[in-house]
């Protein structure tokens, strides 16, 4: 038995009454220079490349490491969001793309230093990019989407210049270098900690950082909190200035109601994962700043397994598409906080543009649904299950009840299945679920990227298991299509196939509701759907 003393506890009791009169003194001086960010998730590794790393780890790495390039930002309906088309230098002072699109040349900033004071050189960049495409880490699969697959593609020209060669003019090569994974590591430090089994120092980098980023790790308690402090030498944001906050506390608070209380009381400065109902009431009170951005690189949908009867019949899928109670679901699950992907009007029955995700001309029309069911030879309906994972219960649970109720009206009997997260991903991977709801996100949301990754191949992310050769061919061609007009035409074709085949039913793009103290400024919706601590400042 451990050493146990009861005395402090009895003091607790004796002083319990005192608590009622003593208020907590706040440390006002450092508080204004500190950003306290609370989240339901937690950081589990300091290197986002480690398999199993969380989204919070992605966000943290944006502040502790630099990349060659970064996404710019733009205003969308008055809110700042990341800009996929504007790529600016981060460690690179400038970059050139050769006219044939096969060579990218990056010139590094002369003043860029790692946190240990040594200069960032082209050798470090090469080592880091080599690691990303060679080591068994997450970056490998990501960079593959930008035709970056081999260490031979990265060449050091001189200490401040590095050249990247591509096999094909891939539009996504450059944006890929701005994503989370290809972070630039201090190769001298990392090599010291490399071992024969682990030549890329993955074990060491999981718990240590060796970067040039805006913040330095002060303390890291996995599952609880991370505290980072400002790197005063970092000037990659606004010229000549480090990041605004001197300290950032990233704290895990699992209970959403507690997070809402914290930010409302002013003890926390910023939170992005509150429940929709809490956001609505906080917004109504008007004390805090609420910035709601539709997550325009993510989609929630109801998916059907196109290989399992009866969903292998396109008319059954259409019947479901016209039987879902869209408006009610949107209100019950999200309190209307998001961008709907239903209820569009296509005057000539053709897609309005070639952008995916698109708003589809589907709405609740039970007569039409019954007709489709009849055409499928199932006028009496059938029985099936509707699954969702526990992690999404707050939105998916009310949704599931409504789906069940509405599908019952056309004779489809639905059993609701709530699965633990690991079980749900296993069943999806094994293609065992007939009908379920899921969400997807793409860091680099281009039409062909969505279709290639989420609608082709016998792989996990092809949730609907659709196998449509025409769709696969067009999506593959579009990837390397240099002509914008033709690309747009390909997109229209893909969207038309999507609507007629109805492999799965896009519902909406949920809002990212960032709730913050009214003094916080500069919040930007980032591709990784977390807060980039370098963006924000206090008035």
């Amino acid at each position, binding site marked *: 038995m451990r050493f146990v003393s009861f005395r402090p506890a009895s003091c607790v009791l004796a002083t319990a009454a005192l608590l009622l009169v003593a208020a907590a003194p706040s440390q006002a001086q450092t508080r204004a220079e500190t950003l306290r960010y609370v989240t339901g998730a937690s950081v589990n590794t300091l290197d986002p490349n480690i398999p199993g790393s969380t989204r919070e780890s992605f966000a943290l790495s944006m502040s502790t490491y630099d990349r060659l390039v970064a996404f710019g930002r733009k205003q969308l309906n008055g809110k700042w969001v990341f800009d996929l088309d504007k790529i600016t230098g981060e460690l690179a002072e400038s970059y050139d793309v050769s006219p044939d699109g096969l060579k990218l040349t990056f010139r590094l900033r002369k003043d860029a230093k790692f946190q240990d004071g040594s200069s960032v050189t082209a050798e470090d960049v090469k080592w880091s990019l080599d690691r990303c495409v060679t080591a068994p880490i997450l970056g490998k699969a990501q960079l593959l989407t930008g035709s970056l697959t081999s260490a031979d593609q990265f060449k050091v020209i001189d200490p401040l210049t590095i050249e990247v060669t591509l096999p094909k003019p891939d539009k996504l090569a450059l944006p890929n270098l701005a994503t989370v994974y290809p972070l630039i590591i201090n190769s001298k430090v990392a090599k010291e900690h490399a071992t024969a089994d682990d030549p890329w120092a993955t074990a060491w980098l999981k718990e240590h950082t060796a970067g040039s980023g805006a913040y330095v790790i002060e303390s890291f308690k996995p599952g609880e909190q991370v505290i980072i402090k400002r790197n005063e030498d970092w000037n990659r944001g606004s010229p000549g200035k480090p990041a605004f906050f001197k300290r950032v506390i990233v704290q895990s608070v699992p209970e959403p109601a507690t997070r809402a209380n914290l930010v409302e009381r002013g003890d926390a400065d910023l939170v992005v994962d509150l429940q929709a109902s809490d956001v609505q009431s906080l917004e109504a009170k008007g004390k805090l700043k609420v910035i709601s951005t539709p997550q325009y690189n993510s989609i929630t949908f109801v998916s059907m397994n196109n290989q399992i009867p009866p969903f292998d019949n396109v008319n059954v899928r259409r019947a479901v598409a016209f039987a879902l109670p869209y408006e009610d679901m949107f209100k019950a699950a999200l309190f209307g906080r998001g961008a709907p992907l239903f209820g569009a009007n296509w005057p000539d029955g053709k897609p309005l543009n070639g952008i995916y995700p698109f708003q589809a001309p589907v709405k609740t029309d039970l007569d039409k649904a019954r007709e489709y069911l009849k055409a499928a030879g199932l006028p009496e309906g059938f029985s099936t299950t509707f699954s969702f994972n526990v992690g999404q219960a707050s939105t998916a649970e009310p949704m599931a009840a409504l789906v069940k109720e509405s599908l019952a009206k056309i004779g489809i009997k639905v059993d609701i299945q709530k699965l633990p997260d690991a079980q749900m*991903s296993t069943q999806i991977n094994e293609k065992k679920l007939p009908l379920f709801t899921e969400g997807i996100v793409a860091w680099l949301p281009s039409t062909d990227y969505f279709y290639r990754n989420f609608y082709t191949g016998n792989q996990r992310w092809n949730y609907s298991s659709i196998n449509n050769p025409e769709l696969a061919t067009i999506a593959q061609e579009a990837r390397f299509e240099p002509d914008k007009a033709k690309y747009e035409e390909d997109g229209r074709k893909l969207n038309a196939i999507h609507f007629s085949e109805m492999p799965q039913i896009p519902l909406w793009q949920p809002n990212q509701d960032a709730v913050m103290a009214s003094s916080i400024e500069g919040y930007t919706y980032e591709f990784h759907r977390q807060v980039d601590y370098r963006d924000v400042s206090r008035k």
Partner: protein
Amino acid sequence: MMTGFGATVARAGRRLLSSLPALFGVLVFTFLLMRVLPGDPAVFFASGPNAGKEEIEQIRKQMGLDKSVPEQLVFYLSDIGRGNLGRSMMTGQPVLKDLRERLPASLELTFTALLIALIAAVPLGVVAALKPGSLVDHGVRLFCALGVCVPTFVSGLLLIYVFYYLLGLAPDPTGRIDVFTSLPPQRTGFLSIDFLLAGDIEGWWAACKQLILPAVSMALFVIAPLARITRASMLVSLGSDFVRTARSVGLSWQKVVVTYALRNAILPVITIAGIVFSTMLGANVLVEKVFSWPGVASYALDALLSSDYAPVQGFVLLMASLFVMVNLVVDICYGIADPRVSIG
């Protein structure tokens, strides 16, 4: 007296030895149970935006899941033998380290809660037993019923709402210590003790303030069984011959109730307190979640949801060992409360 003490120690030793096979059983059972549960941890953890088959295989290998179950079991047992509980995918840390950091948090909370509960429950039970059927008795019954009816997370959220949100008296309910307070050097892992050892009264007070609300919401839930048991066994004790005799020879009220009645009535309370303690330690997951308390229960729940085998197995082993320990302590307390027991 010395022989009595020696007998207690010997008995404790025997009990400890005889519990080893049970511990081993728990170990193997949990191991197999985790593997039987549907849900593949490799698939779950390979959920980066581009994770495919290759990543899944890699995680499987990393977790040792590419081997057959008997092989895995042998590896697992030999690891345990060397004091290695494996690595958590969730936090990326060795399970032993995680548990070592989190167990003091859970223990501190549970001890405080149990203490609050005992301090409240025993007098309540005694008072109720002294005047059965009176208004006081009914009042105690009502209070206990309320405590049991309200789930801990509801009472927790209510306490937060009133004392933190509305009145602003309690500190923000985020873990063991205010984020702006610096931690004392770690000695026992119990913050309230470590702060005292470091002589930091301000820090100690900060830690205590964080502790009060979660401890009270846990205590509320267990006051009922403790108070009811105290009442029942006090009633038996008060109605027994020796109390009647004691009264008849004119002993003081205090001597009768406290020395004779209560000492005899306390045995079942100790048993229940032991059980309550073990249950609280594992079942306080809701309180830990609501107050962001970095304890072992919420750790195990998160691990279970993501099918992270190593932490769940480690947690169950820890709980089983603690249960053995608690039973031992209860046994020893028995011996102290009632010397007759040591004969058995």
